[in-house]
């Protein structure tokens, strides 16, 4: 686990390239080396070194030596078994325990089940008893475990830089409580948003005790629709809960409901349910997306309109006017313009009108309330309310705002400021200059997980209280639909941290400030009857049954539209750009900045890891004169930046907005609205651990209160500097190949086996000869596998494992990557190694663009020279395919990778000698090599030879490891194992159950691979293909099933289900074929097919050209 990361200027040694040392001392004397040494054990980390076992062994070494171990001791080191002193309830060493808990995030929470090994949480999964999520979770939830063991978290309470103990903290809080008792004048709180009922109750107590104190809440990003919109539309405090599963036509107005909106897990799941097809007659929803950024939701769109965020209001008005048939919105819609505007809006409105009660219009949470009102109006008019959209009553927060607090601080009326979580000095609106303000408050008590920018800005006198992780604290939270879920600690606070509930209870002067007691009290007030029993059931189930917000019936208030405060329509141009401040896919608002798993996970669209970039459209790039040169070799597309070996050499630009500027590397992102500049938030942290510090640039620096989601009037100015970005997918066109096979729904209806008509297989004799139509189990066990000199093992196990990935529902959310990383002890390698293409994640999420233009002529054909402005996107999770005829196995000189009898391509790490022949021979490029001892070295010590070795990796860092998976060392190849540890455990459990009987076949559904379990859309299904009734067998029997690179006859066990699109034939941007197919036909410009029996009559030849002009608009 590499935790330490150096982002300072490279040492002289690094700049001058490799150099040989005459002696180690020479090296040791360089200041750079001393620095490295100092960094090796960051603050706090050393406290965890050598506890228990190690120290013990050192002390006992002498007595062992005297113990007469003799020669026997030479062969292997002495090891100990350390049993418990007192047995622990329910704990059997070697068996994990599972507890329900939840990860809170803003005003929502993800219900979880945490896996603990002897009291050590190592992995979280979604709680399957919470129906809306169906056991899924997100990449943030998966990665949150790593934060628990972050050696750079705040590890002690400090005051003025000196450590203080728990008793001092309690005394301090009691003092605050007593000093301000009475009216609370001069006391202020600034907290993050929370859904916790206990917190709501305690805030009520605080307000009662300190009536004149300020309780302000601030979140840098907004992920729930504004309550003001519901107030304006319905006259009451309600919020929408969308039912995507029931919606046949969906319009998203700048809403990234698959990722950025609160409740996105539930929404993604339901959306996928409406999109999943099994047979030709199945229907599928249709998604219209109008957006400025290129989000995951946009990547799933059947019709995508690139429109600036500030123009979405006009678009909403135009659409509402069309649907409702009224001219009332004409003034708001005025000015909106994009190619084929009238037809686009008319056909979209018509499609909605034809699906009354089963359509849905969703507005992005960051959009102004008028957009939401219009969306509500359309939904009400179409009769969608109660069908595809429910409104639930809830109590909105009555907290004050950060702006009001800032005013109070400026007026010197705040004497004590308690900052609860959040990081306002980093992410508050720039015009407040909060970092300076907080320094002017006489007493600041900062409660936070990290000693971050806010702690630093509060000055030397600040009291920092170390917060507990959610996995070490008692608490509660509500999911987006209001269901109350418990937050249970899995482990005692590692560093004597304080939980939020206890902090507030102490300040409020509660009798029993213990967090457990507080939560118990809250739940007791909600439930009736036996409080203890109800509470235990609450903890056991992981949710409080029936606690969801009640659905209420709403009626649209009279058509009294408040358009008074609507800003006028501003046309955008190169000199008047719009900035969209986007919640980052991985860093969120910056709170996960020190999480190595997330930093190294590539962004799903840009594929950049470790940094953010200023995203601009190809049109703007052209106008700014930065048409890149690109390496055209083997790339049927001019690249969007200059690349050398995975390093994107990005130009540094300066963004200025209202006199504030920020510098950052520019990445040209196809699919953006022409004059929208996207700045992902959450990077450019200055005070956090080694991982987060110096990653990217801080977009908050230009973000003011009046434009927190988007703002216009920005400019981009070039500088002469360049920056290398770690981009994991420089190549982004399929070049007309058949890697992802797509069709439109109508083609699928006519020709369900369309995938067979695409690709090399359709031109050659069937790969499997006469067995081509047999089921996978028959093929695996019976069909001969050639006459290779390499001896293939018999696949005669009672299980034959296989996987099916549905490309039609995959939304590309990256959760599988992080779940796999957490389950399989995959290390991070750091920015420099990612630039060299040495990332270790076993799953790669390939993202391909297509605009129908890529040409067969790879070298300089006309269609390859233009950057696509409006591409279609396909996402494809790619990992070891477990080929039955695995090319990697035949080339391994030491038989380190061989098949087992159940069809798994296994890796015996202890045999591997690291020739890397297997990776060379893998057609899918899914093998990963440990170029360094990533688990024993900091990312900045990789090149230090033996000196870089950490003999004592901090215990804390090791604690996150899954004990059921080998931690690999340098020089070893690794790759997806189908989570072989889970398979073996399930098989063993089944055999244990079987005892003296033959019932040893693992029932279908028992084994879920980590990626399958986390997947919010159930796109990944794993199981026994020998059982024809298993879920995976049924999926593989579908006609959309195909093998990537199937013509190689490697017989992959992982196969894919083809992607479908459902475009509206009347829309101006309609294309009769998906654009990747247009490119495919262009490349293969053929007339005759091979023997593929079921190829569609539509296939290929007269592919309709896509509409010449896509909706593109400033």
């Amino acid at each position: 686990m590499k935790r330490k990361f150096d982002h300072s200027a490279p040492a002289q040694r690094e700049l001058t390239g490799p150099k040989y040392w005459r002696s180690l001392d020479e090296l040791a004397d360089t200041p750079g080396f001393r620095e490295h040494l100092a960094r090796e054990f960051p603050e706090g980390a050393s406290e965890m070194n050598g506890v228990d076992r190690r120290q013990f062994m050192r002390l006992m070494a002498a007595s062992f030596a005297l113990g007469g171990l003799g020669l026997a001791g030479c062969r292997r080191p002495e090891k100990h078994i350390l049993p418990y002193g007192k047995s622990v309830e329910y704990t059997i060493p070697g068996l994990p325990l599972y507890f329900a808990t939840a990860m809170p995030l803003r005003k929502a929470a993800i219900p979880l089940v945490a896996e603990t090994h002897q009291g050590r949480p190592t992995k979280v999964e979604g709680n399957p008893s919470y129906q809306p999520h169906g056991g899924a979770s997100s990449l943030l939830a998966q990665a949150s475990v790593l934060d628990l063991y972050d050696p750079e978290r705040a590890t002690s309470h400090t005051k003025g830089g000196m450590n203080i103990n728990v008793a001092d903290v309690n005394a301090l809080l009691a003092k605050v409580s007593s000093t301000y008792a009475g009216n609370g004048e001069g006391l202020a709180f600034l907290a993050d948003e929370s859904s916790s009922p206990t917190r709501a109750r305690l805030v009520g107590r605080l307000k009662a005790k300190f009536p004149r104190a300020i309780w302000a809440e601030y979140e840098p990003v907004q992920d729930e629709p504004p309550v003001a919109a519901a107030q304006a539309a319905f006259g009451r405090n309600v919020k929408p809960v969308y039912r995507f599963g029931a919606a046949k036509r969906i319009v998203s107005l700048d809403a990234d409901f698959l990722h950025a909106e609160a409740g996105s897990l539930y929404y993604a799941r339901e959306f996928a349910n409406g999109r999943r097809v099994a047979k030709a007659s199945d229907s599928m929803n249709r998604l219209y997306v109008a957006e400025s950024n290129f989000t995951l939701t946009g990547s799933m769109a059947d019709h995508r309109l690139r429109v600036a965020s500030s123009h979405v209001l006009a678009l909403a008005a135009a659409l509402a006017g069309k649907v409702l048939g009224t001219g009332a919105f004409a003034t708001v819609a005025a000015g909106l313009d994009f190619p084929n505007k009238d037809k686009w809006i008319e056909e979209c409105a018509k499609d909605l009108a034809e699906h009354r009660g089963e359509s849905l219009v969703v507005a992005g949470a960051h959009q102004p309330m008028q957009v939401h009102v219009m969306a509500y109006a359309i939904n009400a008019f179409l009769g969608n309310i109660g069908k595809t959209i429910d409104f639930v009553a809830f109590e909105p927060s009555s907290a004050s705002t950060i702006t009001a607090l800032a005013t109070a601080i400026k007026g010197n009326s705040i004497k004590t400021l308690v900052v609860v979580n959040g990081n306002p000095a980093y992410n508050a609106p720039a015009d407040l200059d909060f970092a300076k303000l907080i320094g002017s408050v006489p007493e600041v008590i900062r409660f936070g997980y990290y000693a971050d920018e806010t702690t630093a800005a509060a000055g030397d006198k600040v009291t920092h209280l170390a917060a507990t992780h959610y996995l070490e604290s008692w608490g509660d939270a509500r999911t987006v639909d209001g269901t109350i879920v418990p937050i249970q600690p899995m482990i005692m606070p590692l560093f004597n941290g304080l939980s939020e509930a206890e902090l507030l209870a102490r300040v409020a002067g509660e009798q029993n400030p213990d967090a457990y007691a507080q939560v118990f009290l809250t739940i007791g007030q909600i439930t009736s009857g036996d409080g203890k029993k109800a509470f235990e059931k609450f903890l056991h189930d992981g949710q409080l049954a029936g606690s969801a917000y009640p659905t209420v019936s709403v009626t649209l208030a009279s058509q009294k539209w408040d358009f008074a405060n609507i800003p006028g329509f501003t046309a955008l141009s190169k000199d008047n750009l719009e900035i969209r401040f986007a919640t980052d896919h991985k860093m969120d608002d910056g709170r996960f900045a020190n999480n190595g798993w997330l930093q190294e996970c590539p962004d799903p669209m840009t594929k950049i890891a470790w940094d953010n970039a200023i995203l601009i459209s190809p049109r703007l790039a052209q106008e700014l004169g930065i048409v890149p040169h690109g390496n055209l070799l083997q790339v049927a597309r001019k690249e969007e930046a200059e690349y050398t070996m995975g390093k994107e050499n990005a130009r540094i630009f300066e963004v200025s907005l209202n006199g504030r500027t920020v510098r950052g590397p520019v990445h040209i992102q196809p699919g953006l609205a022409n004059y929208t500049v996207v700045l992902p938030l959450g990077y450019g942290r200055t005070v956090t651990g080694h991982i987060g510090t110096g990653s990217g640039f801080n977009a908050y620096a230009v973000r003011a209160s009046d434009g927190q989601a988007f703002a216009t009037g920005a400019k981009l100015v070039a500088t002469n500097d360049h920056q290398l970005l770690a981009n994991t997918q420089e190549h982004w066109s399929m070049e007309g190949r058949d890697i992802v096979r797509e069709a439109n729904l109508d083609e699928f209806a006519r020709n369900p086996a369309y995938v067979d008509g695409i690709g090399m297989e359709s031109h050659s004799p069937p790969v499997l000869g006469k067995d081509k139509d047999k089921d996978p189990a028959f093929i695996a066990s019976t069909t001969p596998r050639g006459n290779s000199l390499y001896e293939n093992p018999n696949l005669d196990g009672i299980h034959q494992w296989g996987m099916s990935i549905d490309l039609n529902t995959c939304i590309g959310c990256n959760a599988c990557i992080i779940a796999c990383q957490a389950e399989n002890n995959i290390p991070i390698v750091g920015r420099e190694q990612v630039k060299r293409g040495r990332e270790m994640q076993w799953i790669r999420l390939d993202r391909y663009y297509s605009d129908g233009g890529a040409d067969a002529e790879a070298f300089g054909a006309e269609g390859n020279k233009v950057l696509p402005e409006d591409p279609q996107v396909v996402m494809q999770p790619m990992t070891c395919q477990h080929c039955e005829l695995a090319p990697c196995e035949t080339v391994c000189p030491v038989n380190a990778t061989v098949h087992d009898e159940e069809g798994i391509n296994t890796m015996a790490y202890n045999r591997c000698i690291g020739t890397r022949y297997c990776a060379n021979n893998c057609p899918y490029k899914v093998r990963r090599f440990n170029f360094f001892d990533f688990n024993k070295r900091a990312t900045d010590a990789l090149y230090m030879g033996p000196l870089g070795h950490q003999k004592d990796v901090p215990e804390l860092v090791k604690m996150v490891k899954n004990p059921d998976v080998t931690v690999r060392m340098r020089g070893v190849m690794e790759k997806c194992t189908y989570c072989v540890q889970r398979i073996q455990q399930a098989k063993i459990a089944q055999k244990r159950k079987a005892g003296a009987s033959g019932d040893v076949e693992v029932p279908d559904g028992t084994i879920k691979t980590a990626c399958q379990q986390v997947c919010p859309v159930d796109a990944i299904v794993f199981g026994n293909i020998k059982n024809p009734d298993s879920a995976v067998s049924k999926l593989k029997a579908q006609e959309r099933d195909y093998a990537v690179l199937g013509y190689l006859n490697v017989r992959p066990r992982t196969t894919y289900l083809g992607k479908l699109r459902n475009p509206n034939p009347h829309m101006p941007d309609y294309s009769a074929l998906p654009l990747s197919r247009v490119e495919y036909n262009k490349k293969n410009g053929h007339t005759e097919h091979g023997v593929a029996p079921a190829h569609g009559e539509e296939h290929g030849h007269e592919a309709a050209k896509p509409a010449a002009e896509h909706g593109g608009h400033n």
Partner: protein
Amino acid sequence: MSKIFPKSANALPLQILIFLGVLGGVAAAGITYYATPAYLRVGYAPIQPVPFEHSLHAGQLGIDCRYCHVGVEKSATSSIPAAQTCMNCHRTIKAQSPLLEVVRQSEQTGDPVPWIKIHNNPDYVYFNHSVHVNRGVSCVECHGKVNQMKVVQQDKPHSMSWCLDCHRNPAPRIRDPQDVFNLDSQTLAEQGRIEDAKKYIHDWKVLPPTSCSGCHR
């Protein structure tokens, strides 16, 4: 020449030959014994922090293995008992024995008794006790007659080839499931019921894994 070599040098070639022969013999014997999978510490019997006698507890007193090794039927590890388990009896029996001081301390403070691991498989081997003992493989097959050992020692080599010997041909090693924890019992084969053993293996689908993924993850 006699000025250079003394007369005794005449015996030197023979001496060298004998020396090399002895050296080679010792080396060959050493390598055969120590460096092949057959050895792997068989006979290793370290001195434990508490002089616990299996021959007394499991042998004379007849305490079932599972009384102390509670995890053996459910978990990968058989688990070494908590000090509390020892004290269940030793609170009253030999309550003051100085030999048990470490155990008493452990129960009181929670600090573990530092037992020395005897059967030490490499970290990349994921052996699972439960699947063996539930399917007719007795403790004695890997651990020997622990009930007769005063000081526990490694009885079998625990090498990969030794594992595979049984995984490839389990029939001679299978016991009746009710004999698994009876260390003095005989395998079905020893009882002359090899056909029964083969039938069990077929009917129970014993199918011990012989490929890498069975033990290495």
